């Protein structure tokens, strides 16, 4: 087993829907509500655009945590997108857990465009969880190195 080094810099991929959560992240920014730099955001039109393959890819390439953010259920800009996400990812995350990626490393949160404070709080909390879990080595061991 590899030693968990304290110098490990965690890596978190956050998929944010364009209409609610990405705007929520913008609001967190314009309100100067900080969250750790290890969180990197990818903009998607809707949380339902996130293919489980994207999540797998992130873990394969060494991400320590993946978080999906979308509009609150019922508020999806596209009416029903986040319902698909919710069901799809519930399955995906339990499968990942089976693979050895702790369920704490994956998360779905609903953040509206008005919830800058929530966005920052969610990201701080998630980053803290990931930091406590330490380096993620399970799928990374399987990753295809070019």
């Amino acid at each position, binding site marked *: 087993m590899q030693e968990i080094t304290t110098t490990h810099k965690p*890596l978190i*991929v956050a998929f944010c829907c*364009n*209409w*609610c959560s*990405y*705007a929520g*992240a*913008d609001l*967190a*920014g*314009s309100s*100067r*509500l*900080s*969250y750790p*730099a290890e969180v*990197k*955001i*990818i*903009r*998607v*039109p*809707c949380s*339902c*655009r*996130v*293919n*489980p*393959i*994207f999540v797998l*890819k*992130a873990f394969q*390439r*060494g*991400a320590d945590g993946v978080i999906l953010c979308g*509009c609150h259920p*019922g*508020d*999806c*800009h*596209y*009416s*029903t*997108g986040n319902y*698909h996400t919710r069901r*799809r990812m519930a399955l995906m995350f339990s499968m990942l857990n089976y693979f050895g990626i702790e369920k704490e490393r994956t998360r779905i949160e609903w953040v*509206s*465009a*008005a*919830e800058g404070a929530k966005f*920052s709080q969610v990201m701080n909390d998630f980053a803290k969880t990931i930091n406590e879990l330490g380096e993620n080595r399970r799928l990374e061991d399987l990753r295809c190195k070019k």
Partner: protein
Amino acid sequence: MQRIGVFICHCGSNIAATVDVERVTEALAKEPGVVYAVNYQYMCSENGQQLIKNAIAEHRLTGIVVCSCSPRMHEATFRKTAEAAGLNAYMVEIANIREQCSWIHKDIEEATEKAIVLARTAVAKILLDKPLTAGETGVTKRALVIGGGIAGIQAALDIADAGYEVDIVEKRPTIGGRMAQLDKTFPTLDCSACILTPKMVDCAQSDKINIFSYSEVEEVKGFVGNFDVKIRKKARHVDETKCTGCGVCMASCPSKKGLNEFNMNLNNRPAIYIPFAQAIPNVAIIDPEQCLKLKSDKCGLCQRKCGVGAIDYKQEDSFVERKYGAIVVATGFRPIKLDNFNEFGYADNKDVVTSLELERLMNAAGPTKGTLLRPSDGKHPKVITFIQCVGSRDVSGCGKPYCSKICCMYTAKHAMLIREKYPDTEVHVFYIDIRTPGKNYDEFYRRAVEQYGVDYIKGMVGKVYNENGKLMVQGSDLLDNKQIVIPSDLVVLATAIEPDPSVRDIATKLTISIDTNDFLTEAHAKLRPVESPTAGVFLAGVCQGPKDVPETVSQASACASKVIGLLAKDKLKGNPCVSHVDENMCTGCSQCEQVCPYGAITYIDKEFRIGGGKTETRRVASVNPAVCQGCGACTVTCPSGAMDLYGFSSAQILKEVEAICKR
């Protein structure tokens, strides 16, 4: 081979103070595919945009990455810049290094590293970008206004004035909304009905405006320029085309115990009624809960009395389907319910009233014909105590966290009107803060204090209780630092306002977003305050946030000008970031069709060559790009990976993930 230019903005010191822009420039210049990288003080300025245009020409760039503020801010700006320089508008990617980086991180090292990663991610994405062309669709030259209060009325009048047809859908039997219930308006104290009803009449008389009263939006389909809306006209049991509004039916109705909603339930009305004298349309309506004929098939008096045969007990809800180019949402507000505020004794004491109830008690058309009498015994109140911020600025969870904005002014108005009309009345006002910004507003409040001698007490009220017929208002006086009890005859609660509950349903139907307080969210808090995030849907009045009448009217007119600007166009450019199908991979399984919320996917039979000079016909999906909104639900649902999204392709997002995860 792509030739990418990277443009790093300082945003003054907004970015440059925390991100070492020189280091970002150097790092990005070395990225594969990047042929040019530069930083500049303000990329969005004219000079900055010129710099981009020059670089596109000079370095023969095929795509640009701008590292700046959020794409929600300036993506459109830089798309135009690229287009002006002869590049396709969609060969632009934004790395958000302000909101997601410089504004939230303090450490320069950390922020610079993150900025480099974000910029690299954008480069990874743009390398797979393809030029896209937006399709064009026609525009239906008619607008829909949801809500017939002052916001909806003003918007409709302005749109009609420009020569476009407008339909107003109002769920109540008459237009007029909350403003029709007000007695006087601040800060000029002119009579509310006198300024509102002429506008209502204008709506009724305009040949461009069509009013669907007692109607609701049932279903909305389509998109900007081409909304298909189904309107439910609820059964009023009175034929609108025949009723003359004479009122004979009201006089004949034996069931007179209905609560008069227009008078805030302070008096009664018959089962068949006209909400108020100036109602538009001036047509009676039957309350089915109360009408003896509809409930138990007894009576039928009004039908016999009606001289024009307008009463139709068998009338049922009917539906109208129309097309609209633009939609204005103006669903308004209501005062909050006071169930959580037992300390003010509203439920137990008839003489504890809300401000809107007081408006009716002071109105000449109200239950007391304009004489201020207490609801309990009909006597003149001698001591009146107002309590401000009931449910507003309340972070305890019982009320609303926001300031309702209008209460300071209307309380000053009420206090002033009462002192004017009944100088022997003692008026006290408990307040937390007085908030009166606005033209002539603070002067108005000062008049209440200085000229009319209203006693303003800074402090909160803990309790209102009845003692020997007097309402004891117990509160603290913060300036004198003491507890006080004011024996009062009437207590008025400046109740917080909240969006009308119908707004949730409307928001869902229109796929627009609402915030945690149920106010509709505007596209940009400062720069696009009347547009919703959904193209073609605009917001007017309190449904977007607390406002007074002048602000509501301004916002409604702003909405109207946006609508007119939209309807004046013959063609609209669509969003090219839509779904498309790889027909060779599609198995025609129908799964994408089932998840598409817009019905944009249909199936066609198509011939494919299968070699040996033979063909076979297969059923494959076909996306209507004019209807597709680009959510991407189909792309993930597709089991064979035949569906993909322009602008957010699977390959692009995978590259973004890789770029972020590169250590």
